[in-house]
């Protein structure tokens, strides 16, 4: 139930934020993305929000989606599914920490 609900909440967030992200990086800034231009974009607070939301919602949506696929094939029992969920939470938190570390020089 919660996994279903959060998959949809993050889906809506991703559609909106990814549209902004792709318009600014791919359509308007193609061929011009580099360390400095990323810094200029992230000098605006709005883009920091976009990138952090993309990072968090993206990681949750990706790993929760992966969890649903894996539970259809190999992690079919309740016990195995619990182990899978715990492992994916660890992976997700690590990815969030690493991703925030990666963005830190531009957003701090």
């Amino acid at each position, binding site marked *: 139930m919660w996994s279903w609900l959060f998959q949809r909440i993050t*889906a809506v967030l991703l*559609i909106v934020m990814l549209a902004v992200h792709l318009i600014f990086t791919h*359509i308007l800034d*193609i061929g011009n993305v580099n*360390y400095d231009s990323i810094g200029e974009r992230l000098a605006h607070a709005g883009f920091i929000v976009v990138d952090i939301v993309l990072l968090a919602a993206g990681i949750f949506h*990706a790993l929760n989606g992966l969890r649903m*696929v894996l539970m259809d094939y190999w992690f079919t029992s309740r016990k195995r599914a619990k182990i899978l969920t715990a492992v994916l939470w660890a992976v997700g938190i690590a990815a969030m920490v690493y991703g925030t570390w990666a963005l830190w020089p531009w957003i701090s």
Partner: protein
Amino acid sequence: MSGKTRETANVGAGLWKATGMWAWLLFRISGLILVFYLGAHIIVVSTGRWTEAGRTLNDLMKAFDNPVMVLLDLALVVAVLYHALNGVRIMLMDFGVGIKRHKLVFWSAMAVVVICFAIFAWVAFTFIATGKGVTS
């Protein structure tokens, strides 16, 4: 072949003729591609901190301007757009929209995919041909 086996075989073939089944399979495949891309994307962006003044990141970004990489990027856009619009269709069905006319809703969503793709393709091919963006 007895009548019964033939009937069973036909049910199987019929199942995969259904639009919804292909929609589901492509949704999974595009989703898995996007999970791996997200991991790669986080690592690529993090290279900004690996070397002085983002040197590794800048080298990678230059390498991604190669036409082959731009085309791969465009293929990724197809995965993103398909996954997003089929996702919208699924969320509409959660609210009861498109249960009776799911094929119409599916193909309408695919029309949006094609329109959005055309914009990204125009940008990508302009960049490959001229080395410039459409706004520069």
